């Protein structure tokens, strides 16, 4: 119970609308982060030595060809102006043209190339997230309530082992088991252009399973730690002393409060999931945005890489804001606390 502080008498806008204030600040910091990321991405792809025009033309290009390409791609303009045009384009919905398109002599806008792939990646991410949350809560709570016992030991040790594996190793091992040995599932997840992965659920199984294993291990460990922490708190002890059954203590008291850090962790883990998606899509040749990105890097199409990178970063930052906001809604304490 907090003693009323003298400041309560003269509320500021910050005190009167803490939730709105929090939301505004969080969105602004998110936008600021994104702006910094956009500068980083642009600097890495256009300012570092290694010219975008010669990169896309390859080593055999003559200086004359490179000079023409530089003009065509607008590389003769100053870097600051190019950055402004690029960012302005993205903000107004014009994602620009791919460098590969310039190399083949015609303009190839990026958006039609990546539209379906974004949707495919989104479907994969959604399937994995929908499976991961209930599984990690169940396993984490199980391990936490049996802390130190064999069940906990089995869950904790196996998740420690899996959490340290690169996604492509998990995926390769799954392919060997489910394709080479059992011949149950396909080793690649190719789709014809325009086809939805949802029409071919079999193709989604191994990529989703790989990502699930990779993300489940980490999130289970976090949920376990969160529940153990709340189980030690005074109100949980109080509830136990009052003779409430253990199931009820866990579900009504511990889990609810452990959910807040868990949501935050899911939010923070989104970049591991997205990083994992890039690897898994490449491994299974799944036509998503991650595969598209790696292919664009391989042919050094910096224009497409820039655009995909900023879209992915924006998505991660957006999910983190949503997660933070959910946490505040979940924990009443944070809503009223004057921070």
């Amino acid at each position, binding site marked *: 119970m907090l003693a009323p502080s003298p400041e309560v008498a003269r509320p500021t806008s910050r005190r009167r609308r803490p939730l709105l204030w929090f939301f505004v600040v969080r969105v602004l910091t998110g936008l600021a*982060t994104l702006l*910094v*990321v956009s500068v*980083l*991405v642009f600097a*890495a*792809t*256009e*300012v*570092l*030595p*290694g010219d975008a025009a010669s*990169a896309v033309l390859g080593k055999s290009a003559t200086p004359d060809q490179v000079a023409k390409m530089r003009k065509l791609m607008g590389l003769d303009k100053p870097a600051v102006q190019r950055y402004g045009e690029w960012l302005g384009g993205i903000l107004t919905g014009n994602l620009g043209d791919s460098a590969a398109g310039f190399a083949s002599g015609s303009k190839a806008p990026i958006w039609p190339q990546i539209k379906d792939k974004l949707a495919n990646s989104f479907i994969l991410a959604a399937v994995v997230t929908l499976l991961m949350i209930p599984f990690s809560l169940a396993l984490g709570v199980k391990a936490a309530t049996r802390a130190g016992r064999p069940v906990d030991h089995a869950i904790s*040790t196996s998740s*420690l*082992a899996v*959490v*340290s*594996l*690169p*996604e*492509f*190793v998990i995926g*390769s*091992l799954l*392919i*060997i088991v489910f*394709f*080479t*040995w059992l011949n149950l599932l396909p*080793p690649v997840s190719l789709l014809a252009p325009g086809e939805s992965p949802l029409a071919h659920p079999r193709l989604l199984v191994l990529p989703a399973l790989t990502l699930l294993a990779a993300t489940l291990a980490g999130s289970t460990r976090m949920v376990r730690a969160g529940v153990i922490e709340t189980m030690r708190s005074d109100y949980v002890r109080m509830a136990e002393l009052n003779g409430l059954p253990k199931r009820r203590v866990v579900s009504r008291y511990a889990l609810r409060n452990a959910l807040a850090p868990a949501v935050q962790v899911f939010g*923070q883990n989104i*970049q*591991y999931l*997205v*990083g994992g998606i*890039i*690897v898994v899509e*490449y*491994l299974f040749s799944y036509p998503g945005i991650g595969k598209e*990105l*790696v292919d*664009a*890097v*391989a042919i*050094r*199409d*910096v224009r497409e*890489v*820039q655009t995909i*990178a900023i879209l*992915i*970063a924006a998505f*991660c*930052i957006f999910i*983190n804001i949503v997660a933070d906001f959910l946490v505040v809604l979940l924990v009443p304490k944070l809503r009223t606390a004057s921070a």
Partner: protein
Amino acid sequence: MPEALRFLRSGTGGVGLVLLVLVVGLALIGPFFAPHALDEPIGLPYASPSSAAPLGTDELGRDVLSRVLWGGRSVLLLAGIATAIAYAAGLLVGLLAGYTRSLLDPILMRSADVLLSFPALLFLLVLVAGAGTSNAILVIGVAVIQFPQIARIIRSATLAQSTRGFVEAAVARGERTAAILRRELLPNIVGPISADLGLRFTYSIILVASLNFFGLGLQPPSSDWALMISENRSGLTLNPWSVLAPAVLIALLTIAVNMVGDAVARTQEQSALTVGRRS
């Protein structure tokens, strides 16, 4: 048992260390036992295991066993150098930021926030797109990703120590900042560093291996476990060993490093608790 080896008491620590010695040993001295040359076809592509090639052959008919024996050095070396660079920079900046509490502090926090806001792999991919594939870019990229978080950990450990009596005594004696950082602070933050090191090294290995797997790190014909998986994927039905062997070795390596790191971190936590109780 000496202080540094206390982590062996936990089961995972001992098992992890044995595994680690085996895998690193294989990676380091394996090349001396390779029966065939790295880059020379000895049979048909994806041939099944035979007496000449105990693990069969790869996509170009090269001996899988020889390539596996050669393929561990690169990832250990690149990830090791990247982690060392990140730690050297992280130590310097972290110590200074924690001790002087200067403007470095907020800069460090914000840059770590920015780097944590998107996947590390994305950063590496963008870097490679801009600067091309090379080992130097790979090492620098991984080090840049790891550096802010390392600096942050060292900064908070230094901050906690910098108000202790022996530091104030050194300041009162008029010692120079460099001497205080090296003699008074550094020895006292070894604990948090050793707890963090295993995790960092695992992460470096994963990042380096992933880039190699994309074919954007080491270039053929060099032999690397991750690159082998990528190259031989299409021959999985003919000779699964060409993928299974490197995959299992990377798995054992990262699991072993993480197990040792986790055991060291736990031992550190416990000893920090007991020290806290005693004082």
